[in-house]
């Protein structure tokens, strides 16, 4: 990301700006979810703060009825609106999967294109805050495996703002994943109005020897490790997928074609995760060019534990990440 930029902001602010700007720009944009209106605090971490005061009835706090309000978003989208609905924490998608996977993702296809569902599902997640087994999972792989819905997971304020604006304008449903512990990390401030296209990865750092691919919180782990290795003379190229589905394989493959080595990193558990798809596609396309097998660095195949030392053991460490990168170079 453009670290030269003077203005600073964090992800939370940038998402709040994106929501304000989107609602200003298009009166069909509506927002609802638990606690999202100002009388309820403008969201439990205040991402939606100020919206209800400014846009009134277009912003509503809901009962704890995810199935109903997710379906309400689907219906409102079919009825001509662009709902941005919030699922407070990602694990709660499990109580409203049906409206997401059987309806939002499928209505365009099943209706033969007569209807479509331009909605955004915002949700936050991430381990490291002692929220335990039912409040911390990265479940993007479930939705990446669900044709008809797109999955976006920004790692910084600029992409957060630009991707949320694009997601809201997108004609199809988009799952927008926010990494909770990243909300308050300062970064370059977004330029109001500048959108980031869905489906386009970003070269975060250029390099020649190995390509490290990630998204969301993984980018904050990759950056210091890549910097360290670069200082040692290992030239690391870093790609932020930004959109997890559909994958921008053009960007990934042209990088790995150049480096001949790749490591995929994500917080979600390793087995049957996003890394498997990225790894398979690279092997399928660049089998002869690869100098080493594509490596995957992800979390332990278990629920997220509570105690801090176990949370640390659940997530990959920077040392593991560094070792995985070095191994591809061995």
């Amino acid at each position, binding site marked *: 990301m453009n670290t030269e930029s003077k203005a600073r902001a964090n992800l939370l602010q940038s998402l709040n700006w994106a929501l304000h700007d989107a609602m200003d720009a298009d009166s069909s944009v509506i927002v609802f979810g638990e606690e999202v209106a100002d009388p309820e605090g403008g969201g439990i971490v205040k991402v939606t703060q100020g919206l209800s005061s400014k846009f009134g009835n277009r912003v*509503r706090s809901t009962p704890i009825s995810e199935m109903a309000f997710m379906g*309400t978003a689907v219906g409102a989208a079919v009825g001509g*609106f662009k709902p941005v609905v919030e699922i407070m924490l990602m694990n709660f998608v499990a109580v409203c999967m049906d409206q997401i996977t059987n309806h939002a993702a499928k209505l365009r296809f099943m209706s033969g294109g007569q209807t479509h569902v331009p909605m955004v599902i915002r949700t936050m997640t991430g381990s490291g805050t002692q929220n335990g087994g039912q409040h911390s999972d990265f479940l993007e792989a479930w939705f990446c495996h669900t*044709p*008809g819905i797109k999955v976006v997971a920004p790692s910084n304020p600029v992409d957060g703002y630009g991707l949320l604006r694009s997601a809201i304008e997108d004609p199809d449903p988009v799952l927008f994943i926010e990494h909770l512990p990243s909300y308050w990390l300062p970064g370059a401030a977004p330029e109001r109005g500048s959108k980031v296209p869905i489906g386009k990865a970003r070269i975060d750092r250029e390099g020649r020897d190995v390509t490290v691919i990630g998204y969301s919180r993984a980018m904050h782990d990759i950056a210091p490790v890549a910097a360290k290795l670069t200082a040692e003379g290992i030239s690391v190229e870093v790609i932020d997928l930004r959109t997890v589905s559909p994958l921008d394989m053009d960007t990934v493959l042209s990088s790995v074609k150049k480096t001949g080595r790749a490591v995929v990193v994500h917080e979600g558990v390793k087995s049957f995760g996003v890394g498997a798809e990225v790894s398979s596609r690279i092997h399928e396309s660049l089998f002869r060019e690869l100098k080493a097998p594509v490596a995957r660095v992800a979390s332990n195949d278990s629920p997220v534990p509570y105690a801090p030392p176990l949370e640390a053991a659940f997530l990959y460490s920077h040392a593991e990440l560094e070792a995985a990168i070095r191994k591809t170079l061995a």
Partner: protein
Amino acid sequence: MNAAEPDHKTLLAIYQKMALIKHSDDRVIGAMKAGRMQMPYYSARGQECIPAAISVLLNDEDYLVTIYRGVHDMLAKGLPAKLLWAELAGKATGSCKGKGGPMHLTYPSKGCMVTTGIVGASMPIACGLALAAQLRGETRVTVANFGDGASNIGAFHESLNLAAVWKLPVIFVCQNNQYAEHTSYAKGTSCERIADRAASYRIPGVRVDGNEPRAVYQAAHAAIARARAGDGPTLIEAMTFRFNGHLIGDMGEYIPKADYAAAKAADPYPRFRQWLQDQGHASDAELDAIDAAVRQEIDEAEAFAMSSPPPDAIEVKRDVYAYEIA
């Protein structure tokens, strides 16, 4: 307010819709038995009075959301028989290009917005369509159809509560045919009348004879007026029966013979036809003329469906997203 009475013209309009639904259903089953068509078909024969009497109170702009057992709802709301038949036949000319089939019938230009195959799912989606109308300040209403068994799934509860809290213009229509697949009402449902559950949301709940056009019309009239006035949702429980089982092929062994016979005796189509004659609303000949016109429409629909081409394989790449996938 005192109950609304359908006028002469309206009564005949209801009869026409009931005839259309009945004859279309008879013909679909005939085509299946003859091997000309094949599909998982959830016949609504026996329930035709409900959408017929409700839809005469609706405009094309009003929204409809229904379920796999929704051919009757769709025909009553205005889905053209030709497009229905072509969709059932899985043809490129079907309303959903053959991609949806009987469980996903859709036709927005007549307000036929969504058909779901998931029990309970019609209700949350109806809340969203109603919210759209409410936010636009329209008087447009949304009708959400579902069955008696669906009143035991979570989406029912969440939807009625949300619609009540937000005063959404939805008419929740429970078509109580007394069975959920092979499970009788009492085996799955703890309350005596589903309409009573409306009290949990402080909204009106009314049970009516779903085979009695005027009773359905009056309940719908009040509910629609209430919704158009911005006073919120209503739950209507319409008592009825499905004569052809859950799915074609269902032999109904689980239905006591006496109950089935009693239901047959209350078949809404011949009963209403007789009533119209007794009341002097129409002569045998006039009603025959309506039936004949309907049969003609179905002949054309079947011919259109049978002569239409199947969808091209490329269609599996289309409509997944706004763009065609690789």
